[in-house]
């Protein structure tokens, strides 16, 4: 019975992982489809879509907008969120529980409510919607995720290192930029990557606040009605392969390092 159970979890998990991969593989395979108009039926292998990515109208413009929005929102959210994370761990202040509630609520609110709320606010304030309002919206929902990610890193930081800096007559500014910040950098990087990924793939909040501007997800949503061009698959596949390569490199180097450390023990 126990042996069977051990075997079963391997099979079950392998099936679950394959299940997760099915639509990803489908999307990549159909980026090579000689699709002409509609990319639904397999019509044969071609590299044309990859060589002329921008030939589908508007797809590259939408992709560029998404990158721009992602970068600006990431910089803003990472800065604001990191400052909050440091304050939460290091300082005592009043309204602490109100602060954590304010940080928790945006994560517990469905995106459609966040999107409709901002859209109602922009409507009442008479603000025209476009890339600017998308950036404002994305920064808002990324802040809480940055706080969660960076906070863990701040908490694991040894205060003795900063004390040592102070003992050696470093100014508070030097202590921060030459000790604290470099030590926090892995957490800040993870938070920035998470922010960018959240912003880049966001559709629901964007759709309420984009006006006439198009991001990559909203391009796909609109195109879904008449058929998504294979060039959209190319861009998505390209981003995917790049990201997965980066993750694989970092994961395997971390695993190799762990193994070396284990051997050294």
């Amino acid at each position: 019975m126990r042996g069977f159970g051990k075997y079963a979890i391997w099979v079950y998990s392998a099936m679950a992982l394959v299940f997760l991969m099915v639509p990803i593989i489908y999307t990549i395979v159909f980026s090579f489809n000689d699709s002409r108009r509609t990319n639904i039926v397999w019509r044969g292998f071609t590299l044309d879509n990859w060589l002329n990515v921008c030939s589908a109208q508007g797809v590259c413009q939408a992709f560029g907008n998404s990158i721009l929005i992602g970068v600006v929102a990431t910089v803003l959210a990472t800065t604001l969120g990191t400052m909050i994370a440091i304050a939460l761990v290091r300082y005592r202040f009043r309204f602490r529980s109100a602060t954590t509630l304010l940080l928790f609520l945006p994560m517990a609110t469905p995106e459609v409510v966040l999107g409709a709320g901002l859209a109602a606010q922009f409507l009442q304030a008479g603000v025209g919607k476009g890339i600017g309002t998308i950036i404002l919206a994305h920064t808002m929902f990324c802040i809480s995720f940055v706080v969660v990610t960076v906070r863990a890193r701040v908490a694991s930081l040894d205060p003795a290192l900063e004390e040592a800096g102070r003992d050696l007559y470093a100014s508070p500014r030097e202590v921060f930029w030459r000790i604290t910040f470099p030590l926090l950098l892995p957490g800040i990087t993870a938070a920035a990557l998470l922010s960018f990924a959240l912003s880049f793939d966001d559709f629901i909040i964007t759709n309420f606040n984009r006006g006439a501007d198009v991001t990559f997800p909203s391009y796909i949503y609109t195109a879904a009605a008449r058929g998504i061009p294979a060039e959209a698959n190319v861009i998505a596949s390209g981003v995917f392969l790049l990201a997965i390569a980066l993750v694989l490199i970092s994961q395997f180097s971390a695993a190799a390092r762990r193994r070396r450390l284990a051997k050294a023990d």
Partner: protein
Amino acid sequence: MAFGAFATSTAVAEPAARRKSPIALLLLLPGLLYLGLFFLVPLFSLVITSLQQPDPVVFGQFENAFRWENYVTVLQQYWPQTVRAFGYAALATLFALLIGFPLAYFIGITLRRWPLLQALALVLVIAPFFISFLLRTIAWKQLFSDEGPIVGFLQALAILPGDAAITGSAFAVVFGLTYNFIPFMTLPIYTSLERLDLRYVEAGGDLYASPRSTFFRVTLPLAAPGIMSGTLLTFIPAAGDYVNASREFLGSTDTAMIGNVIEANFLVLQNFPAAAALSLVLMAAILILVSAYVKRSGTEDLL
């Protein structure tokens, strides 16, 4: 990966001595002001909008009022979509847990002896985050289409009647929601199982507990924070989702969820008060459910 941070940070030991300093205010103020301006004020805007009435002069415009009846009207008109949204989200959360928990257990505990395999499996769980979720949902739509391989196969086996379709059904929508949220369920559970000290499990066996009772009385309680984060990360966005249930993706008009109605009222019909009232109904329902659910641990723990 950072998505797991939602669960990871729950057990962080923070330095006991927190200082009091005006710097704290300087660090907090910009971010909190930002959230006030672009999270709290919009909620307030929703409240104002939800009570508006049609402008008697200009067609299609609304003026501020106190029309509480808007809430009654939208609930009468859209209660099926509201109930459906919570039903679908609950089902998707359950299925995602049934798939995600064993997967998280496998990666976090079974694969411990093979770090490289463990790293690879983890990358596969994170992989869906790197490819547009709209395209993944479209992929399922095309695989499930009437001429697609899955329908053809099921019809050949006479499991599915010859004229039946999968897309547009409640099954397809719950399937799509489940698929989309499996990583959100798996990662937090993985982070809590990954840290689980196997000596506790051995102790259960040493004390003559059966594997089953060790699982239910040792492993499962230790995985509880991860299960809680995972179910919240799945249920909340699933209840508000309108992509899977949309006609262009896996749904049909018969599967419309509250998110679809909010989108249609806001962006298509431009009936802003109805959309705002429905948004607040959704938010209130979720907050009630979530606060009942997290009552034991509180928000400080979750964050």
